[in-house]
């Protein structure tokens, strides 16, 4: 790997980590969203520098769209979207720090102590062609499963996010009154 790529890798790596830290330290929800966007765009950049430009650009484009949607949800649901007052919405901070620190230490130890093998074969001349050929050939089943997972997600997310509509009353008579549900949250809300 040449010097320019190494420098790019180092810069993007540091920025990705800094963005990740900012996500959980900023008060403003807008800043949090853009810190996560920056961090995940740097992840896309790292993937590109490692020789996978198609996947890297796809990750960056997907993250931009995701974070724009997330910004809307953050402002809609969070109680302090502009971060005008400092606030903390944490629970069990010490335990979480302990667990995540232990996981980081274990992962770094595994990375440094494992005798990694040498690379098997040179990288292909066109990585996008390699991925497309695999998805349309030997990995077709994976592609189908991923496609069905996305379809199920679309249906499931729509059902969860919409009002119950015709399903909030018993039977098929749309003129019937809604059920009285003593528990709330179920049929009849």
């Amino acid at each position, binding site marked *: 790997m040449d010097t320019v790529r190494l420098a790019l890798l180092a810069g993007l790596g540091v920025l990705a980590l800094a963005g990740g830290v900012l996500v*959980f330290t900023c008060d403003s929800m807008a800043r949090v969203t853009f810190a996560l966007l920056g961090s995940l765009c740097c992840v896309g950049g*790292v993937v590109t520098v490692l020789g996978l430009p198609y996947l890297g650009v796809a990750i960056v484009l997907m993250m931009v769209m995701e974070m724009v949607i997330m910004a809307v949800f953050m402002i809609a649901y969070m109680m302090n979207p502009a971060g005008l007052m400092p606030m903390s919405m944490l629970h069990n901070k010490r335990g979480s720090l302990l667990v995540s620190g232990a996981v980081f230490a274990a992962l770094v130890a595994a990375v440094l102590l494992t005798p990694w093998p040498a690379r098997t074969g040179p990288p292909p001349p066109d990585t996008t062609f390699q991925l497309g050929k695999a998805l349309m050939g030997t990995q077709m089943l994976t592609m189908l499963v991923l496609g069905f997972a996305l379809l199920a997600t679309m249906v499931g997310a729509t059902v969860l996010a919409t009002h119950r509509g015709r399903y909030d009353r018993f039977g098929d008579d749309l003129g019937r009154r809604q059920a009285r549900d003593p528990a709330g949250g179920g049929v009849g809300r």
Partner: protein
Amino acid sequence: MTFELVLVLAAGLFSIGLFGALSQQSIVMIMMGIELMIGGIIVAAAAFWHFLAPAADGQVVIVGAVVAMAVEMAMGFAVTTAIYRARQVDMTDMAEDLKG
């Protein structure tokens, strides 16, 4: 040594995300933590592809991780919307009915 450093970067992203997923009360912030964790997995998969085995299967792992990210995001927002609509709840501590 570059390979190990990229894997340490992946471990760092994963651990920061894990801290967020464990410590945050807001459902949206927990989703952000999970996104960072999957980001770490993507970096590690790309490093394995580049430094160890530049075969097509490694790229498919990254595609799977990206799809997992999209599914997590969509279902997370849908669940947040459903629970907020039903009970005006957007924090995990207010939705602990099944806690033993």
